[in-house]
């Protein structure tokens, strides 16, 4: 009707900004006015009025907005997806719970283990110069016998810094008299303790390490002799709230040390933990005014600060020449020096005489694989349940398609749902982690903060994982279901099982992993028991060890021993160098047939050593108190040493000469026993009688008392009384050898505990999955079962039919798992000197356990399938 049209651009502008719901009426009105004005004859006026009106309508209430109700259809659908998801979620509470909970447990396990691993890798990285700090190790071995020492001779630090000043900027030593504990007291003796974490260190300590000093001057705190720096908690322990600066602490009952600094407590993730640092100069007093100059005794842990990390290789290449230049002739050819980066020490250094026991990288590998396994199991579970559940929605898909859903929309819908579910699980997982972290910390002996989860790695993981997993688990049903032809989906009951093979494969993988974990846990526990409980070759029960090093015991040892033996419950008393079964020292011995002396593991002992520990003599004799020359002219060795020397029999060894001095002979050979932990095989050992009273300064560190198992408390009381009588004012401390030796396998113990818990959880998760799957299958085959029943199948037949397929899966899982588990376990056991034989009953047990748990899980559904009244199911046809 209109002869002329309003300005096109204005019209377009209107339709562009206008809310589509309002467009028609608004456009209608402006057109009407335009037509009317036009009728009055003025096209120009009409145009102006039109444009004017269009602009006047351009107001907030008319503008298109992304309010939900006004979104484009595509985005609008999300609201619908969400509603459908919510309804589905609550309609099938059981499924949803299994699905979300199972995944949450899996993710939580994964998070906890990665937190643990991350903590292990964070060791010693807090120092700004960490990448340039190296520790220097001394490997002192001939024919594989000797020591691999983490520590160095006193003069090495000085020498290496002078000789290689182009590469070595700083050298810092630590020293603790090789004593298990040292006595510290306040000057008024109100507080006295034996401290295990006291070290002497060079004044440059604070230049190399970034430990924070809160009081005092880091540069000069350790410069002067008789200075001590202590941690805040030690300050609290000895001085309470009083400022300790300028006060004195009494060291070993005879030396006063001036407190020149207080530092923050050492963080838990450093490989050496200490409470006190004493200036190195102080040591001069203990060694006649100057530091020991020997290159043989190597008690100082020595750290080097290099100019550049790349200098390490260059320096290492020069070390053989360095050894030749400084080390004494008789060991020169047996010594190799090695550098290890500070940051590697915690996980990779397993030398003799570590400052404190380290972790091992193997454990990390084991944990990492457990974490991966558990997460994988949980993910498989999730995929399985999601796909199974999605198949039930064929009808919905058919309906949506009929109503015009595009395929991309359906795919989006399923992806949306699975991502929602995974997000939900992540939320639960984080909640679980937050709740269980304190518990986990207590048995993993860590102090991991939950704030670690806020690091980018975890944020990324916690967001990325649901997206990835949601995508993977959603993609399959999304594409399978969206490909349904609506007519097929709607007409039949669509009970054909989609993706059954896929799910079966996943179940097999899942159970294989669980069975591998079960077997692994079993083998690990077996191995641990073997290490801990097998016969070490000496009596460790009811042996009380009393640290005596650097105590005034030298003069009263014999009287004290005699007093102790008067108690009928005290069976035998001796003294020795190290904790038997845990540690030893090394000495150079020249046996008949050797061209020069070689290093051999050594223990200095007092008389009655063999009797105290029940170590049998296989040839010759024990040291005798009646033969006073035994101290110098006689030596007792073990069988391994005889073998190492190539002597034909133990008897032949008797009378062999040792040392180049005349008349020194081996007088006895004892049966081999584990004088170190069973991580190592038994090596040659020399048991050297040392009756020199000064030996108690360094060579004899413990008194060992074997008592009868009756009235242990009374006996200890008696011992304490005698101790106090002989050495008034000296603290009596003791420990049981057996308990101490358990610490040797602490790492394995901890690991098997953690493995056990997590493999248990993985089985739980796998079962949740199986339960969900069996429920689903039961549902699907309801009709089939009912018809079978009507046709005369018995309950048991139906039950069998139902559960058969699951057992086939478990069987296949076993077949897959056994060889894999065997190979993995062989590898792990390869890291031990003593290996437990892999017990094949373990495999059977694991298989049975998996089958039993699976059986119990599907039992419920199987039983239900067998017992439903067919009429109930079939009446709906």
């Amino acid at each position, binding site marked *: 009707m209109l002869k002329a049209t309003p300005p096109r651009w204005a019209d377009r502008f209107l339709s562009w900004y206008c809310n589509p719901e309002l467009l028609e009426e608004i456009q209608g009105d*402006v057109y009407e006015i335009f037509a009317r004005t036009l009728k009055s004859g003025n096209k120009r006026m009409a145009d102006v009025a039109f444009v004017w009106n269009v602009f*006047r309508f351009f107001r907030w209430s*008319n503008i298109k907005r992304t309010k939900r109700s006004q979104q484009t259809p595509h985005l609008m659908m999300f609201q619908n997806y969400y509603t459908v998801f919510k309804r589905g979620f609550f309609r099938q509470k059981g499924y949803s719970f299994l699905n979300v909970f199972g995944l949450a447990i899996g993710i939580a396990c994964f998070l906890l283990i990665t937190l643990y691993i991350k903590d292990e890798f964070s060791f010693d990285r807090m120092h700004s110069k960490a990448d340039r700090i190296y520790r220097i190790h001394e490997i002192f071995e001939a024919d594989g016998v000797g020591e691999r020492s983490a520590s160095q001779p006193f003069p090495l630090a000085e020498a290496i810094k002078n000789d290689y000043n182009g590469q070595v900027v700083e050298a810092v030593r630590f020293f603790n008299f090789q004593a298990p504990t040292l006595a510290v007291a306040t000057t008024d003796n109100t507080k006295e303790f034996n401290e295990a974490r006291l070290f002497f260190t060079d004044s440059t300590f604070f230049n190399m390490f970034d430990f924070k000093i809160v009081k005092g001057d880091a540069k000069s705190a350790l410069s002067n002799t008789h200075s001590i720096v202590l941690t805040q908690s030690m300050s609290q322990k000895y001085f309470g709230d009083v400022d300790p600066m300028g006060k004195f602490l009494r060291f070993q009952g005879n030396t006063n040390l001036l407190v020149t600094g207080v530092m923050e407590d050492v963080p838990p993730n450093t490989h050496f933990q200490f409470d006190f640092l004493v200036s190195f100069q102080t040591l001069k007093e203990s060694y006649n005014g100057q530091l020991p100059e020997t290159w043989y005794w190597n008690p100082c842990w020595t750290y080097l600060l290099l100019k550049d990390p790349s200098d390490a290789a260059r320096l290492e290449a020069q070390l053989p020449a360095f050894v030749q230049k400084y080390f004494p002739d008789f060991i020169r050819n047996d010594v190799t020096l090695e550098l290890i980066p500070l940051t590697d020490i915690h996980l990779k250094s397993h030398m003799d005489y570590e400052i404190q026991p380290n972790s091992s990288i193997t454990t990390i590998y084991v944990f990492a694989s457990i974490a991966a396994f558990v997460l994988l199991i949980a993910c498989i579970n999730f995929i399985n349940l999601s796909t199974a559940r999605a198949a039930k929605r064929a009808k919905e898909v058919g309906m949506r398609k009929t109503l015009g859903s595009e395929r991309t929309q359906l795919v989006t819908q399923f992806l949306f749902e699975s991502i929602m579910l995974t997000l939900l699980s992540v939320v639960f997982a984080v909640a679980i982690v937050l709740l269980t972290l304190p518990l986990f910390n207590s048995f993993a002996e860590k102090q991991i903060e939950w704030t670690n989860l806020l690091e980018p790695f975890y944020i990324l993981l916690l967001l990325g994982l649901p997206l990835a997993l949601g995508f993977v688990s959603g993609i399959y049903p999304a594409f399978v279901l969206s490909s349904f032809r609506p007519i097929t989906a709607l007409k039949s009951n669509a009970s054909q099982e989609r993706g059954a093979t896929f799910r079966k494969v996943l179940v097999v993988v899942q159970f294989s992993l669980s069975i591998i974990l079960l077997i692994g846990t079993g083998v690990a526990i077996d191995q641990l028991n073997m290490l801990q409980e097998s016969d070490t070759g000496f009596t460790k029960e009811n042996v009380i060890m009393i640290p005596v090093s650097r105590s005034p015991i030298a003069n009263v040892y014999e009287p004290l021993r005699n007093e102790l033996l008067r108690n009928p419950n005290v069976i035998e008393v001796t003294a020795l160098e190290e904790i038997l079964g845990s540690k030893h020292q090394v000495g150079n011995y020249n046996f008949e047939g050797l061209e020069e002396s070689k290093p051999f593991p050594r223990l200095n002992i007092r008389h009655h050593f063999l009797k105290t520990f029940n170590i049998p003599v296989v040839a010759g004799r024990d040291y005798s108190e009646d033969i006073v020359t035994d101290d110098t002219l006689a030596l007792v060795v073990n069988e391994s040493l005889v073998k190492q020397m190539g002597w034909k029999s133990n008897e032949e060894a008797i009378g062999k000469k040792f040392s180049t001095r005349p008349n020194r002979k081996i007088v006895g050979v004892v049966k081999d026993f584990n004088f170190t932990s069973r991580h190592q095989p038994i090596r040659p050992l020399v048991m050297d009688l040392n009756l020199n009273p000064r030996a108690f300064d360094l060579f004899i560190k413990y008194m060992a008392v074997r008592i009868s198992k009756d009235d242990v408390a009374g006996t200890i009381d008696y011992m304490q009384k005698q101790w106090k009588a002989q050495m008034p004012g000296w603290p009596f401390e003791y420990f049981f050898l057996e308990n101490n030796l358990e610490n040797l396998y602490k790492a394995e113990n901890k690991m098997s505990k953690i493995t056990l818990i997590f493999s248990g959880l993985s089985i739980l998760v796998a079962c949740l999955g199986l339960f969900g799957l069996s429920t689903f299958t039961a549902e699907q085959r309801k009709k089939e079962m009912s018809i079978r029943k009507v046709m005369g199948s018995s309950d048991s037949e139906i039950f069998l039919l139902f559960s058969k397929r699951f057992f086939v899966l478990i069987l296949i899982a076993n077949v897959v798992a056994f060889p894999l588990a065997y190979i993995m376990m062989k590898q792990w056991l390869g890291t031990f000197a003593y290996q437990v034989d892999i017990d094949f009953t373990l495999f059977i047990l694991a298989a049975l356990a998996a089958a039993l748990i699976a059986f119990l899980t599907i039992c419920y559904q199987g039983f239900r399938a067998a017992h439903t009244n067919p009429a109930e199911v079939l009446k709906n046809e």
Partner: protein
Amino acid sequence: MKGTYIGELEELVLLTVGVLYNDAYGVAVMDEIEKQTGRSLNISAVHAVLKRLEEKGLVNSQMSDPTNERGGRRKRIFTLTAAGRKALADANELRNQLYNQIPKVSLQFQA
């Protein structure tokens, strides 16, 4: 609550919707107000007021059949709701009540 109070322009538009009965849409309301009161409003203002009245529940609306003069576009026809009628009655009553209370004298003086 929003809607318990109606403004002057709202009252005017509401009255007009009542007057126009079944033929109250944007342009018609605008024309009627101009004819009756001489006030010339912009069409967008009328739309805004109508929308506000609808939000307050005083008028209802539905789309009419398409007509030729608007290029086949439909109109949105507004009708009074019960609440709308009541609002008008209330406003009217209040006005009368107040008017009646004005002393005669003041009226006379004004005249």
